[in-house]
C-alpha cells in the first residue's frame, strides 16, 4: 500500500495547483464545465460502487443506497429513452451553459445551477465516505 499511497499523495498534491485561466476564457463557463465533469465522475464513482453490491448497501447503508436510487430514477427523456436523474442534472447545466454562451441565460441562473449540481455531487460523496467502513465490500 505504501507506493500506492505515495502515488496518490502526488496526484492529490497536483490537484492543488489549479491552472490559471487562459486569456479570453469565461470563468463561469469554465467553472460550469469543471462542475459537469466532476459531477459525472462522482456519479460514476458512487453508482458503480453501489452497483457492485446493491444488496449490501441496501441493507447496511440505506441512506446511501436510496440516494443512488434517486440519482438512477428516470427524470427526463430524449424522446426515445428515459434518462437517469444523474444525467438529467448534468444535461440541464449543459443546456444552461449553451444558452448562457448564446446570451439567452443570465450568469446568476447558471451560477446557481452549477452550485446545486456541486452540492448534489458533494452530498452523495459525503454519504459514501460516511458509509465505507473496514467491513464494507
Amino acid at each position, binding site marked *: *500500500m505504501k507506493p500506492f499511497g505515495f502515488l*496518490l499523495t502526488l*496526484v*492529490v498534491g*497536483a*490537484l*492543488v*495547483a*489549479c*491552472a*490559471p*485561466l*487562459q486569456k479570453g*476564457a*469565461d470563468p463561469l*463557463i*469554465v*467553472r460550469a*464545465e*469543471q*462542475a*459537469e*465533469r*466532476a459531477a*459525472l*465522475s*462522482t456519479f*460514476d*464513482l458512487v*453508482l*458503480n*460502487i*453501489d*452497483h*457492485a453490491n446493491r444488496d449490501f448497501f441496501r441493507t447496511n447503508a440505506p441512506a446511501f443506497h436510496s440516494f443512488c436510487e434517486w*440519482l*438512477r*430514477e428516470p427524470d427526463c427523456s*430524449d424522446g426515445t*429513452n428515459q*434518462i*437517469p436523474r*444523474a*444525467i438529467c442534472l*448534468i*444535461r440541464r447545466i*449543459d443546456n444552461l451553459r449553451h444558452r448562457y454562451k448564446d446570451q439567452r441565460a443570465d450568469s446568476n441562473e447558471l451560477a446557481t445551477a452549477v452550485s446545486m449540481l*456541486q*452540492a448534489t*455531487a*458533494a452530498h452523495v*460523496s*459525503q454519504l*459514501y*465516505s460516511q458509509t*465505507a*467502513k*473496514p467491513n*464494507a*465490500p
Partner: protein
Amino acid sequence: MTAALALIPQVVALIPTVKVGVQHLIEWVREIRTAAQQSGEWTPDLEMQFQAALTARVSDPAYQPDR
C-alpha cells in the same frame, strides 16, 4: 469544484478500506485532477466527447434503478 477537492482526502482515506471499486476511486481522483487543471473552455472535440460520455451512461447498468 471546491467541494470535490475538499472531499479528496476523505475519499483517498477510504481506499484501503474498500475491497471493490478501487479502480473507480482512482478514476475519480484522475478525473477531478483533470477538471481542476482545466484552463480554458472546452474545444468542440472535448464537448463531443463529454456528450458521448453522457449518452453512454443512459444504458450503463450502474445507472439503472433496482428491479
